[in-house]
């Protein structure tokens, strides 16, 4: 399927298959980009929060320290880095994988639950530019597929 150039397709397997991502041509997730952006945003938020409250909006001398120093702003910035990174990672993951998804056309297939038990499925969506009702069926048959079904979205 990967070599046939399909993009909108997926596998349903009863257990994690090692090397499946590579066989499907799935690249590493870009969630880390979201995490990094969240981390940088968190760090800057923490630093500017302490700077703005302590040195701009309400300058107050505490313990003979300067109005602002990255030293005491650091614990806050550090915590917000972690918090925002976690938010961005979780949020980015849900954004990219489209969960929670309450409906998918494969649910119309009465045997689909066996994909969690003892059957392996390949799903090819008709919105894929390379999709063609008969050719795709032939391709799946050639790949050794049985019980090939067309489902209505």
């Amino acid at each position, binding site marked *: 399927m990967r070599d046939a150039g399909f993009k909108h397709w997926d596998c349903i397997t009863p257990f994690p298959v*090692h090397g499946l991502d590579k066989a499907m041509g799935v690249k590493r997730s870009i969630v*880390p980009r979201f995490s990094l952006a969240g981390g940088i945003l968190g760090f800057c938020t923490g630093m500017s929060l302490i700077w703005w409250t302590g040195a701009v909006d309400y300058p107050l001398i505490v*313990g*003979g320290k300067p109005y602002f120093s990255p*030293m*005491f702003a650091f*614990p806050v910035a550090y915590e917000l880095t972690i918090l925002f990174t976690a938010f961005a990672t979780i949020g980015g993951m849900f954004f990219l994988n489209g969960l929670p998804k309450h409906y998918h056309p494969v649910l119309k297939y009465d045997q689909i639950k066996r994909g969690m038990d003892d059957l392996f499925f390949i799903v090819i969506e008709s919105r894929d530019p390379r999709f063609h009702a008969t050719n795709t069926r032939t391709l799946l048959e050639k790949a050794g597929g049985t019980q090939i079904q067309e489902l209505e979205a």
Partner: protein
Amino acid sequence: MSAHTATVSAALPASSTASAAGRALTIGLVGIALTALGLFVSDSHGVAMSWLVGITFWTAIAIGMLMLILIHHIFDASWSVVLRRQYEHGLAAFKWLALLFLPLLIVSWLKPGFIWNWMDLNHELHGHGTVGTDVLYLKKASFLNPGMFTGMTVFFFLSWMWLAARLRKASFTQDADGSVGWTHVNRKTAAFGLPLGALTLTFAAIYWVKSLEYHWFSTMYGVWFFANCVRGALAVGVLIMLWLWARGDYKGILNNNHWHSIGQLSFAFTVFWAYVTFSQYFLIWNANIPEETFWYNLREINADGSPNQWKYVGIIGILFGHFVVPFLFLLSYKHKLNHGKMRFISIWILAVILLDICYNILPALKDVHGNALPLFNLNLLWTLTAVVGIGGVCVWAYLRSFPTTKLIPIRDPRIGECLTHHE
């Protein structure tokens, strides 16, 4: 000449460790001889401090290896089984490190106060009496005295050598008899070895390094030392993996996930080191009590308020070199899988650990005004020869142990899981 020997060793991988070990020992002895020569060229006090830097650096790496093996056993880890064998070879260095520490002990008894000034009760403090009349010393005297120092140092090395011998024997014997009982023995060793290792490395850091300024206190010191130990051992682990990969031994054994895992651990301990080191600095900065701040002041300004070299060592070398650069570098997944990049960052980390140890030890050398002597003086040369000298002996000990066993612990119960390690 060196190119010639390299070709020979590449052609004969099986027998090359013997000649490589010989070369390492030669380099080690030359380094030690050059450091000894330094005693006649420059101030012997400075050379002794350089030797302390060298011995602390390499002992830290050996302790890090010991702690990583113990952590491996206590967690029943699987991915690190193949690397554990190389660390077990690394532990062979402890007895030689103990031997090389001996000159410092002998000098301490022959000339008390020469290295650790509190050993000499008549040592003049800068502007307020002698050590013997100093209340801050007298309160600590039951802990800081030459007898305790010697006894504890002997105890540290005996503990490490004993733990090393137990771990090595169990692991090496398992290769032959395949008994799973050895894994259980190691797990028990880890259960009591971890607290023993944690306490001994903490006290070693306090006696050998922190007591150079015996007025100072920091509860983070042992943790700081531990973080450096483990980072050093991980960096050396990466270099060993690269070496065995280049030789061909590790081809087919390591996959991407092993490289990813050790990269992740290096990254985690980079953050851990930064957390601990920053906490120590931040708490002292925030409390602003003279008994504590003097230690950082000594590493920042001279008595007249002008900045000294250690200030820039702290900002550029410690803050950026030790944390920011490895942190950003190791964030990337691709960097962790790239052998060239991991080699670069591992050597980098070893260099900054050395700098960190210099930062902690060398400012104890002071001029007549009580200012710390700068990093860049002739003494740095003896520091480097000491590091190369002691390092040569450690590498020799590793290479001598290397051919005595199988490359990987083939009958470890977790070896199958290790070889098929996945994310």
